[in-house]
């Protein structure tokens, strides 16, 4: 297997170059997907036979929840790379992705609460899905706080990586909470093995929104990482050259 790609990733300069070339593509894709998806989903998709228009919050809630969980899995992978290969860029990715993931989790919880009041009759209930999602938010808070509390960069990288890896246990619990226990939250509408329990004119805009949220996540992550890389490497020659070129 050719590992040169993997080893190149360890070089901050290489990352800064390549991410600068990727960034506009992701930005354009994100804007397109989110604008088409939200207009389609919020105005043109048919309303639900039971919930009426309040079901449309799915177009924010589900993508945010997807990205919140994927982001945490990415943190765990970055944690493993950072611990095993001592790759500094993995630590940068971990630190920069955590706040984005926390915001996504918060959006998912908030939209869920707003939807829950008219649909279920309550904003919040301590069922397994909602509680495990709240734990995910606290895990993100823990990673952010731990990273900022330790000033030594190497120790802080190790501590946050360990927390990110251990916390990944929560992800399958979130996913399967609706199957393992009796919950108020409904089971998944989309399963890999079955047809979605939703007609195509409803799930197509949702798919666009999900892809758009992933693009948005990638754009904000790359932007944060590029800034953090420049900050950490500010004493090197290549950073000075980059800064001179841009000013």
């Amino acid at each position, binding site marked *: 297997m050719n590992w040169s790609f993997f080893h190149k990733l360890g070089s901050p300069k290489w990352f800064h170059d390549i991410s600068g070339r990727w960034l506009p593509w992701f930005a354009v894709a994100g804007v397109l997907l989110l604008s088409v998806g939200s207009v389609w989903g919020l105005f043109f998709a*048919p*309303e*639900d*036979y*039971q*919930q009426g228009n309040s*079901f449309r919050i*799915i177009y924010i809630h589900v993508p945010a929840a997807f990205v919140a969980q994927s982001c945490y899995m990415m943190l765990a992978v970055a944690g*493993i790379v950072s*611990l*095993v*290969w001592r790759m500094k860029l993995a630590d940068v990715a971990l630190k920069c992705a955590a706040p984005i993931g926390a915001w996504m989790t918060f959006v998912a919880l908030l939209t869920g609460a707003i939807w829950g009041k*008219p*649909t*279920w*009759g*309550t904003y919040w*209930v*301590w*069922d*397994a899905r909602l509680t495990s999602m709240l734990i995910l938010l606290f895990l993100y808070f823990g990673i952010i706080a731990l990273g900022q509390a330790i000033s030594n960069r190497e120790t802080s990288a190790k501590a946050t990586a*360990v927390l990110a*890896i*251990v916390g*990944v*246990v929560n992800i399958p*619990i979130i996913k399967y909470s609706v199957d*393992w*226990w*009796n*919950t*108020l939250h*409904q*089971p*998944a*509408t989309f399963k890999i093995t079955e047809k979605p*329990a*939703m*007609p195509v*004119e*409803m799930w197509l805009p949702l798919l666009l929104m999900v892809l758009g949220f992933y693009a948005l996540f990638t754009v904000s992550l790359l932007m944060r990482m590029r800034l953090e890389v420049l900050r950490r490497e500010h004493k090197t020659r290549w950073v000075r050259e980059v800064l001179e070129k841009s000013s």
Partner: protein
Amino acid sequence: MHPQRKKRLLLILLVVVGVCVAVALALGALKQNINLFYTPTEIATGTAPLDARIRAGGMVVNGSVKRAPDSLQVTFDVSDGAEQVTIAYSGILPDLFREGQGIVAMGRLNEDRVLMADEVLAKHDEEYMPPEVAEALKRVEHMKVDGYTPSVN
């Protein structure tokens, strides 16, 4: 792979497996506490405690909803396919409440195993469809009941 890296990777995997086992054991032990509600079968067989506030969940049985003419008092049966439990509630029911809908009610069981509920939540299922489709499905369902098979065109 570098032997030291291999060692670190193995250590991480061991820690993750250990944490998974610990969490699985804890969740297994807490299973009953994590479940949001008791099913009618659990209430009928006596798994659910009589003297504590509990939640009961199930489908509202068709034709079982009885409203008092002069108050908000309402009684209905919920079923999980095997057993039924009667729930009494006084208050405004959620919009999604109707016969055939999944609900979760919180309250105490009285001596007759009727749940005196003080909170009723509607449980939404994972099916979404436009109203016209729901209407069409209902029509097909009625035709089947009437012993009439719709012609395929």
